[in-house]
């Protein structure tokens, strides 16, 4: 099973059998009852044994916010850091420690507001991090202000007349920031989330996984159209690499290319099956992935793609750092401290 995870080849394997239970820490989990974070925690704990890694070589690093309590509940190494900075901290760890599997846990406020800069730079550098962004489209820990992913017009304590901000689409943002792996999944869909986590773990470099997560206190039902049995199939577009992009009840809808080069959602019956395009997550050009990320309606969630938008090969930043260092050592020889101190221009005083 470890062959699937060539990206983790430098991380020591476990020598005992571990299960989900081994990843539960002794800390009492303190999210609000009914919070979507519970299911994400249990999905991650259930998935990790599959990687076969030594537990002590797994690290969870978070920022600030409800989601950022996550590391306390994982029986691995972990750090609950400061607001927005987890990707920067994780970058320093990843560059210096190739023997670790590093996961960043963040939220829409933590990573898109205060920590936006660190997120985009981690993505463009392709540092070997798996970033799980819990997007609940609201600020939870500060009790209900709007977030950068809240839809325009959102009425909250800080926006009694409705927010006037245009919102971020995290997938579009990540693709624009040169991300090599971008995916979206849903807190309540265990099977789908596990498959996305599997592909993220196998990816070399930064993997951004946006997880739609319900905040039942301050933004309850934000993702209901994607969850309700009545509407789910109609609005959710499940992306599978190599497969025609079809969705809806009886797969009646699909994505086709328009004459002017854009893409749009159509009834398959209207255009014929041949006109439906296939998903290519490995395409070098992020154009299709970006176009797909723009299809959904931020208000109604119609035409919302989930799954892996983009997954391409590019050497990770930390690997390039290590290779550069070993190249220099090969060329110049390992540094000698005394020669360094002496320098090239010395004189003797007797």
């Amino acid at each position, binding site marked *: 099973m470890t062959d699937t995870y060539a990206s983790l080849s430098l991380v020591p394997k476990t020598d005992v059998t571990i299960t989900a239970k081994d990843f539960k820490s002794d800390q009492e989990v303190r999210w609000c009852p009914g919070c979507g974070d519970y299911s994400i925690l249990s999905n991650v704990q259930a998935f990790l044994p599959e990687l076969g890694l030594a537990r002590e070589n797994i690290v969870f690093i978070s920022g600030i916010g409800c989601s950022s309590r996550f590391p306390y509940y994982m029986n691995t190494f972990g750090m609950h850091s400061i607001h927005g900075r987890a990707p920067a901290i994780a970058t*320093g*760890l990843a*560059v210096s420690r190739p023997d670790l599997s590093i996961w960043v846990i963040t939220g829409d406020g933590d990573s898109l507001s205060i920590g936006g800069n660190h997120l985009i730079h981690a993505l463009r550098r392709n540092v070997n991090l798996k970033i799980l962004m819990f997007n609940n489209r609201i600020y939870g820990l500060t009790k209900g202000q709007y977030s950068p992913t809240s839809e325009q017009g959102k009425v909250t304590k800080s926006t009694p007349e409705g927010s006037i901000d245009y919102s971020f689409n995290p997938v579009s943002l990540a693709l624009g920031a040169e991300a090599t792996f971008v995916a979206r999944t849903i807190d309540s869909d265990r099977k789908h989330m596990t498959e996305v986590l599997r592909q993220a773990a196998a990816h070399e470099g930064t993997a951004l996984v946006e997880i739609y997560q319900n905040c039942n206190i301050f933004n309850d039902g934000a993702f209901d159209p994607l969850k309700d049995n009545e509407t789910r199939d109609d609005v959710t577009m499940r992306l599978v690499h190599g497969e025609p992009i079809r969705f809806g009840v009886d797969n009646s809808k699909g994505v086709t290319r328009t004459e002017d080069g854009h893409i749009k959602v159509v009834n398959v019956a209207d255009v014929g099956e041949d006109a439906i395009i296939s998903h290519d997550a490995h395409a070098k050009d992020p154009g299709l992935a970006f176009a797909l990320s723009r299809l959904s309606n931020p208000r109604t969630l119609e035409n919302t793609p989930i799954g892996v938008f983009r997954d391409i090969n590019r050497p990770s930043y930390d690997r390039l750092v290590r290779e550069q260092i070993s190249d220099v*050592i090969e*060329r110049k020889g390992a540094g000698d*401290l*005394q020669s360094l101190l002496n320098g090239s*221009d*010395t*004189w003797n005083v007797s």
Partner: protein
Amino acid sequence: MSKQVVSLNRVVIRFAGDSGDGMQMTGDRFTSETAGLGNDLSTLPDFPAEIRAPAGTIGGVSAFQLAFADHDITTPGDAPNVLVAMNPAALKANIRDLPRGADLIVNTDEFTKRNLEKVGYTSNPIEDGSLEPFNVHAVALTSQTVEALKSFALSKKEAERAKNMYALGLLSWLYSRGAEGTRSFLQKKFAHKPEILAANLAAFEAGWSFGETTESFSVQYEVASAALPSGLYRNITGNPALAMGLIAAAQLADVPLFLGSYPITPASDILHELAKNHHFGVMTFQAEDEIAGVGSAIGAAYGGALAVTTTSGPGVALKSEAIGLAVSLELPLIIVDVQRGGPSTGLPTKTEQSDLLQAMFGRNGESPVPVIAPQSPSDCFYAAIEAARIAIEYRTPVFLLSDGYIANGSEPWLVPDVASLPAIDADFATAPNHTNADGTEEFWPYLRDPETLARPWAIPGTKGLEHRIGGLEKADGPGGISYDPDNHDTMVRLRQAKVDAIADTIPDLVVDDPSGEAEVLVLGWGSTYGPIGAACEITRRTGVKVAQAHLRHLNPFPKNLGDVLGSYRKVLVPEMNIGQLTMLLRAKYLVDVTGINQVRGMPFKSTELVAAITAAIETL
């Protein structure tokens, strides 16, 4: 033609020109030749923040001052004996520092009506008699350089660019400096541009010959080598010394070195120096901003590296929250602050010591951080090792407060033998450290060493030590989140006690008082060491008794500091701020110390300190 040779004990030269005139390079070359001759020396580069300010303006003047002597010196000198002014702006900006009778070499080619008007001269100072107090050497440096290079296939502009080499040749002759070093330097620099190399060499030779033959210079000078302790020497600038200290410290502790940094004047050279040394396994990460610089360093520290972030005052302000996190995580971290004029962007290329209080208190909550300050360019090496020792052995962030003066200034350095450097013990945790009542073993990340109060450094990858840390308050011992009121009170006091306990391992403050009878103590910290030392020496030569002491550790202070302060009738504290150490001393020791303060962006002049010390003693 041989000229009379006059021996001098000490010379101060200032090269001044337009930013594009190559004054820093000229100064560096002269310094190198001078170091090779065994003189003691001290340098002071002074350049504008603008990369290329408008040509010929006062704002664009770049200068390099160098003092060299046949004896031990500690400052680049108050006033130059020779000023080289490459244009009217350089003359105007520097003439007020030139004492009567000093030599003044002016490049007459640049004294055109337009250039004179640009800086507000209504008449040409070379002709109007205003330079009469000085020994003026009017030299057509530009046109003589162009003339000397007329056989080369160069444009006029390219030929003119070599005028700094012509000036260097002239000065090298005047002070009997060698030419070999400059020749090999140029050969290396222009290895791939043979025509430019030949032109620069020719300009240098032409300047030298001009000195030999012109009647404008009737004598040639020499300065004998200084009687320094025996051993191998090199010339060293503060920033590279600091970088080497970090590399050495990582080796002494047997851990990798990681630098997370965002470029900022005047600290960037430390990043450049470390980036040159990847073959030492050094990891340099140019982050997206100051916060990511310190953030990545915290991540590397968590992973077991000697982690460093380098910056200047504005960068420290941005890093404050993360430094507080490091205080709470109790992880080793070095924050290098190469101080510059503030507040805000302030004076990026000028020196100041005004971040002491920021280093001490610039964080939320009770957040003690040890503070160390090097006293000279070469001391940056040893101060970096000391900062690493404290950071690693006490698991704490440490501030290393350099400043623009020693960062860019240089001096000869007796190169240490690597084997003589002290070892640093990283002492990583490898096993559980607590036994429960039922006999099971556990790892407690906040169980402290009873002596140092340091917590274990347990890095990811260590089996059985899995644990979580964070910025929330932790339970004393087990380290889980704790909101217990008494626990927080205990943890705040423990973090303070840990930093205070460092005083057990730092040497007592040593007072230099040759007479043993001084009633006035001059106490400094950081880069003022040179000027204060020189001032005390001058003061003593007049028969006045004065004691000097210098602080390297600003937090915690040496244990005997209170006693030292109490044993003098008056304590003077010179600082390049308006009274920051003064405030700390008054607060902690209830002693009425007197500040001597200036914030002009330049180091103290010995003469101004002599005047202040003398006045203080007279009014006892």
